[in-house]
Each structure stands twice: as C-alpha cells, then as structure tokens.
C-alpha cells in the first residue's frame, strides 16, 4: 500500500518537473533570440567601424578593411592559391591532432591506472610540460625537414600534452567507489574500462580535446612561420612581408574557420557522449 503511495508521489514530482521545464523553456528561447540579435549587432558595428576607420583615420596597409579582406579572400581562393595552402595546413592538423589526442588520452589513462608508472614518469612529464612547447618547433624542423612532417610533429606535441594532462587529471579524480562497485558486480576488465572508467573520465577527456583544438592550429602555424614552402602560416608570413595586409587577414579567417569547424564537430560528439550530464549544465546556465 505504502509502495503505491510512494509511486504516485514520484510520478507527480516527475510531472511537475516536466511542467517546470516547459515553463522555463519559453522565456529562455526568447532570451536566446535577443542574445543572437545583440551579438550580430556587435559584430556588425565593429565591421562598420573598421571599414570607416580604414583609409580615413588609419593607413589601410596597417589594418586593411573588411571589404578589401573579402575581395582578397575570394580572389586568393579563386586562384587556388589559398586553397592549396589551407589543404596543407589541414593535412598537418589532420594527422597531428588525432595522433596527439589519442596518445595523450591513452597514456593519461594508463598512468591513471598504474601507480608505478605514474610515480616514475609524472615528474618527468611535468618537467617537460614546463618547456614552452612552441620553442621546440625549430628542433622539429631540424629533425623532420621543412615539409609537413615537422609541423605534424609540433601539432602532435601541443595536442598530446593537453590531452594527457586532462585525461590524467580525470583518472586522479575518478571515484574509487564506482570501480569497487563495478568489480563487486562482476564486471570484466573490458566492461570496467569501457562502461565505467572511460565514461567517468569522459568530461575531462572532452575538456582536453576541446582545449587542444586551437592549440593544434597554433602548432601548425608556428611550424609554418619558422620554415615552410606551403601552408596558411607560410601564406600569412609571406603576405605580411610584402604588406598585403588583406591577404594576412584572409589567412587568419581560414584559420578561424578551421578552429570553429573542428570545435563544432567536437561539440556535437561531446553532446552525444555526455548526454547524461545535460541536466546539471542547464541548471548552471539558468542560474
């Protein structure tokens, strides 16, 4: 009898939760429309200001202007020039980023599982992390030449450390009780890894992935700045050298788009994997 009572009570509370969420939904949507409008306004205002300032108050070769950047972006792409450079940079990131991310996650996970490994290598890795990693880029050129592989190396390095540290931090935060419970319930090694540990640390893993995206682009560009014959970084440096400021900005726009697209993809994957967290995130946003 009391069980029926409590069941009723739970279904009522669930129903009122749903109602509350629906009520909260409407003003929230209106608000997000406003946010979008204001955002577009800010960007538009900035572009107008830029366009006006250029040539009137500031030399165009210093800051170019939105219209000049647009036309040079289009012409650079039409000539196939910028497309080729973008493709090279894309390849460097496309190889270096997944390798670095995978290695970082795998080794972070591995260190998290083995106390011995962590004890031996943790200080070494922290010391290595103390080196400003972009300072190693010239070395990679020496080792791997001026082709794409030296840049792949720099991208790998930057991506690796961020993913490693985040995954390792996740493993250190891992609640022992979840592991104990899973093992008591007879979970196999495989099940423990893929159904318990990896999901538990996945918020950290995604933080690592998300933060390493812009850094992977930085890695590629720094490498190209130092020594290259191709790539967006090379294109930017070359254009700046001959004061083609509009081309510099065209290159920057390409890099920005790369980061945005990568981040968007990561965001979609993250939303799928961290569905179970969505609720708590909403509370934080609305609060």
């Amino acid at each position, binding site marked *: 009898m009391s069980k029926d009572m*409590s*069941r009723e009570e739970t279904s009522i509370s*669930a129903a009122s939760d749903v109602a509350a969420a629906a009520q909260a939904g409407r003003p929230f949507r209106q608000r997000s429309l406003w946010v979008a409008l204001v955002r577009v306004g800010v960007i538009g205002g900035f572009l107008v200001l830029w366009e006006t300032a250029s040539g009137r108050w500031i030399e165009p070769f210093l800051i170019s202007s939105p219209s000049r950047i647009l036309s040079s972006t289009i012409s650079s792409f039409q000539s196939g020039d910028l497309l080729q450079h973008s493709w090279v940079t894309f390849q460097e990131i496309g190889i270096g980023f997944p390798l670095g991310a995978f290695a970082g996650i795998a080794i972070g996970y591995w260190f998290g599982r083995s106390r011995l490994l962590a004890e031996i290598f943790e200080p070494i890795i922290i010391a290595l992390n103390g080196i400003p990693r972009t300072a190693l880029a010239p070395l990679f050129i020496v080792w791997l030449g001026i082709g794409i592989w030296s840049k792949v190396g720099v991208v790998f390095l930057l991506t690796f450390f961020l993913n490693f540290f985040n995954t390792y931090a996740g493993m250190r935060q891992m609640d022992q009780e979840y592991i104990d419970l899973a*093992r008591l319930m007879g979970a196999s090694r495989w099940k423990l890894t893929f*159904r318990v540990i990896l999901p*538990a640390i996945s918020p950290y893993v995604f933080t690592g992935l998300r933060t390493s995206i812009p850094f992977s682009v930085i890695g590629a560009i720094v490498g190209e700045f130092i020594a290259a014959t191709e790539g967006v970084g090379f294109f930017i440096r070359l254009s700046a050298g001959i004061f083609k400021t509009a081309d510099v900005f065209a290159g920057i726009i390409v890099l920005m788009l790369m980061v945005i697209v990568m981040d968007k993809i990561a965001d979609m994957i993250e939303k799928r994997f961290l569905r*179970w*967290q969505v609720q708590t995130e909403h509370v934080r946003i609305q609060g």
Partner: protein
Amino acid sequence: MMGEYADEFMEQDFQVSEQKSSSREATGKAQDVNQPVIQVENVTKIFQTPDQGRMVALENITLSIPYGEFVTVVGPSGCGKSTLLKLIAGLTPISAGRILYQGSEIQGLNTKVGYVPQESKLFPWLTLDENVAFGLDPKRYSRQEREHQVRHFINLAGLTGFEKYYPAQLSGGMSKRASIVRALAYEPPVILMDEPFGPLDAQTRMVLQDELLKIWEQKRQTIVFVTHDLVEAVALADRVVVITHRPGRIKDTIKVPMDRPRNIFEIHRQDGFDEAYGRLWNIFRHELHIGSN
C-alpha cells in the same frame, strides 16, 4: 501484478536449492548442518595514518551470520562499521584474522556479495535500467531473463516508467531505491548495506525501510546493514550487533524478538520493540557516558 511475476518464486527456489547444496557439502565434511554464510574470525583492521602512525579501526571481531538473517550493525560514527563491510566484500585487506564466505576464506574481491553504498552511487552515465542491469552477467542470464529481471526489480522499487532516466534526473529517494535494487537484481546471496538511508529525510526513510523489508521478506537474502540509527537497527533486524568506538570491538549482540512481517510505521507499538530498544539504549548510554536519569 503478482501473477505477472510468477517466475520470481522459481528464482527463490533456485536460491534455496543453492543454499541446500552448500549445506549438503558441509554435512559431508562436518556435522555442522547450519553452516553460516559469513564467518568473521578474530578480525583486526589497522590503518596507516598519514603521519606514519597506526589506527586500529577494528579489533578482534568475531561474528557468525547464518543464511537468511537480517543483521544490523550499529555504533558511533567512525567506529569502523563501514570498514567491516569493506572487509567482508574484500575491498580492503585484513590486518589479522580471517573471514570465511560459505566456509572458504575470502581472497581478494568477494563477488558473491552485493554492496549498497552510503550515497546511491548509481553510474551517472547509465540510464536507470542500464544501472539495474549492470550486475546481470550475460553468461548467467539470457537476454530475456535480463530484461525480465530488470523490469521486475524496477517495478519492485516503484520506478516503472523511469527506465530511461539518467540518475541526475531522479530524486534522492528514487536513486536510493534504484541503488538497492541494482544490488538485488543479480541475486547475490548476501547484501551489504552501508547506511543506505543515512542522508534521507525521516518520511522517505520510513517508506524505504518498509519497502526494503517487503522485498526481503519475498527473497530472504542475508543482509548485513550498517546504521547509526538505533530505531532503524531494531526495526529491521533479526539481530543487532553493537560496535564500540575506536578501537571497534563487538560490545554486544541483541536478538530482536519481534514477529515478521513488521509494520515499520508503527514499529513502536509492536511487541518486543521496547525490550530490544531498551537493551540497546542501555549499552549506548554507557558508551556515551550518559547516566540514567
């Protein structure tokens, strides 16, 4: 509702027959027919404190728990009650003594026991039904059996309709129930509960105690239930084990003479409650150095 789950009696049979066969084994070896499922023999647990000191959490604990008994363990907080459960589960190594499970010494993890922790600790990344199904080994249960088992236990917890919810979407009481049936669903013969109702409000607590007893009366697993609440200890148990403050020793064991099934909501009026509670309080009064008024 009962007819729909007629199978559950077969499950019960399974458990009983398992019990019989193990006691048959025992009779083959010795004359002890009512072999206890858990025997704790002179167990001591010493923790290393961070400043290289030694802290005796449990000292010389001897306890024998027969099949199907509902034992509660009470004591002041920090007396090592939870440690005792961890030792039975094999989660922490024993410093001295030994623990037997069905007559053989526990080495490493004891996967024959179910464990209900203080906080619900449902896996937050799994939905309710995935959580309840977690312990159901595909080698032991067919797909159909698993589905049946999950449905049955979710229903038992009064959570039908919430199968696809994530733990973050459930209330405290609901997660607690889910956490308990997660441990019950794969039918371990022994269930260890570590103050499972601790953080709940009084009403929810009573409702859950009532539900726990109802479930237990159907299945009659062996339950070792740790609590610091004297009323809860008496209301649920066949036997109450009292542990003293550090170092944790067994101060006394009290049989609770109340009939079953019990009415949790009016437990004070039941015959035998006052007697058992009185004895228990007497022990604690000395523990707490409170004179009789």
